[in-house]
């Protein structure tokens, strides 16, 4: 075993380990197996110990646990200081955070204090090498992310500062099935915080249930501005219902107020990888494609034969939504 461990910052959502943290554990497992090392985690909260075996089922071998009543809610300074303490004590080689609001709040503070590199909102991670002048750095983390409004994909490295740190976009990494036979070592830690470190007081937390679970859906039927009139939108919803899918949308469609933000697919929305993605009246700009290009099958319906969405679609139907969708619904129902 090498000592190039991969550490994951664990986040909680309504008392449950957030999906993104499990995604990261699974991704960390892949990286660790390339490095011949292990996956560790840092979990911060109050009365969270019973949630931790789940991390083990997904391949995390050791978790550093900090429990304190004052840590029940996320606050920037205490959480950042604890992560820094843990990194200094255990020297991980790579540290991963979810690119969530809180992950992106805490990770930069940690990187700043440790003076190490941090790449935001990665969509892919690899192990590879990099050379600077005559020196070759082997087995380093390649941090891959869209930049410049999604128009370019950049590969970032930080070979001279250890650990390499990245925040990783939610929904991009896959959760592999749990293995209930795997166990995890829970290491209880004492933090070194003083009363002065608790600088924020969380007065109220409001979390709505998501209005749709795009990430978990096998079929997503999405509406774009080409489906913006009432009849077309009704057809999109009917198609989704008929085939047992959920409704997604492009950003301008969401901006127009007919669906909540949870329905937005794309760079600034949710990343989906369903078995089937049906794009109805979506032009397929890069920021939209970033959130759905990895769907197993893509059907594009668009009246413009030159719409960029056809460039990534497996099946293209050129024409009006109002003709095409009723034909699809009819064909589907005919067979039942």
């Amino acid at each position: 075993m090498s000592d190039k461990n991969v550490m994951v910052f664990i986040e909680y959502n309504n008392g449950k380990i957030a999906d993104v943290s499990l995604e990261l554990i699974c991704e960390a497992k892949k990286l660790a197996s390339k490095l011949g090392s292990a996956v560790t985690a840092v979990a911060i909260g109050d009365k969270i110990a019973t949630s931790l075996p789940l991390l083990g089922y997904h391949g995390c071998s050791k978790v550093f646990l900090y429990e304190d009543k004052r840590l029940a809610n996320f606050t920037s300074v205490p959480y950042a200081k604890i992560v820094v303490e843990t990194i200094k004590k255990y020297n991980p080689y790579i540290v991963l955070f979810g690119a969530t609001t809180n992950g992106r709040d805490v990770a930069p503070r940690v990187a700043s204090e440790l003076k190490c590199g941090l790449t935001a909102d990665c969509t892919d991670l690899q192990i590879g090498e990099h050379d600077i002048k005559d020196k070759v750095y082997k087995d380093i983390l390649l941090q891959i992310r869209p930049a410049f409004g999604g128009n370019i994909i950049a590969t970032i490295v930080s070979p001279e500062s250890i650990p390499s740190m990245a925040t990783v976009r939610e929904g991009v990494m896959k959760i592999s099935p749990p293995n209930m036979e795997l166990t995890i070592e829970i290491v209880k830690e004492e933090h070194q915080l003083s009363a002065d470190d608790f600088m924020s007081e969380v007065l109220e937390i409001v979390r709505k249930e998501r209005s749709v679970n795009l990430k978990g859906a096998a079929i997503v039927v999405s509406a774009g501005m080409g489906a913006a009139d009432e009849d077309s939108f009704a057809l999109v919803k009917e198609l989704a219902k008929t085939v047992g899918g959920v409704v997604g949308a492009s950003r301008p469609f969401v901006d127009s107020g007919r669906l909540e933000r949870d329905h937005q697919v794309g760079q600034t929305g949710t990343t989906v990888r369903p078995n089937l993605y049906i794009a109805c009246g979506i032009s397929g700009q890069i920021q939209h494609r970033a959130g759905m290009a990895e769907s197993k099958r893509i059907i594009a319906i668009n009246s413009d034969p030159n719409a960029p969405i056809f460039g990534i679609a497996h099946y293209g139907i050129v024409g009006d939504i109002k003709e095409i969708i009723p034909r699809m619904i009819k064909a589907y129902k005919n067979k039942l």
Partner: protein
Amino acid sequence: MGLNMIVTVKQVPDTHDVASDAMKPDGTVNRAALPTIFNPEDLNALEEALKIKDRVGGKITVITMGPPKAVDVLRDCLFRGADDVVLISDRKFAGADTLATSYALKCAVEKIGKYDIVLCGRQAIDGDTAQVGPQLAEKLGINQITCVTAVKELSDSFITAQRAVDGGHEIVKSKFPVLLTVTAEANEPRSPSAKKVMMYKNIDKKTTDESYDETYMTAGDNAALTFIKEWNVDSIKADPEQCGLSGSPTKVKKIQSVVLTASNTKQIQNNEQSIAALINELRAEHILG
């Protein structure tokens, strides 16, 4: 009561409409082909500072780090009501990643000295990292509230703000000094004032390394600026090793422009038979139930 506020802003290439001529053949971005704009969420940060000033009084100093041309955004800040503006510019800052940027900003903020609130835009549209705000807060050793969507309560020693979190929001209270990162949801930035445009349209920058004059913090509003301060590595007492490329642990290994992955698109005719055949094909493959 009067609060002292520092706002950080950035001039950015407009990434909303990147036409293909903005990409060089090697896949890198031809920044020169893109118009520059005031980073949108930095305008929200400035607006939030102006709103706080409207509510409880105070002074607003705006800092930007960038090339000489970045004075444009500082002038814009004066048009909208900022009290003082500072350009930090030096070749030694070039190539800075977020760590080196936050270090330079920290040195400038410390030169200004007195502040209750630092406001940053949540993120800049050229990098979308959202890292500089929290890193600046850490370097200053102060608290932070990120993704602020509304300022609720204000007193002379603390602030209560609403921040967006995944799937909802929370209300957080913090003592001063504190750094806020402000989102587009927080407000609608005001327009430049015609009077201030007249006053400042020709104002230009001047290199100065005198210590920052804190008395302006208490001077009357009518004390108009005569020039835009320009500071460099020496005047903010920054360690050149921690600036620019040499202070940046992250390196860009590779840049690829995003090209459509040319998949084999199967054209389906828009008629009943072809569409039914497609549906049946997907059924046979268990893509459709």
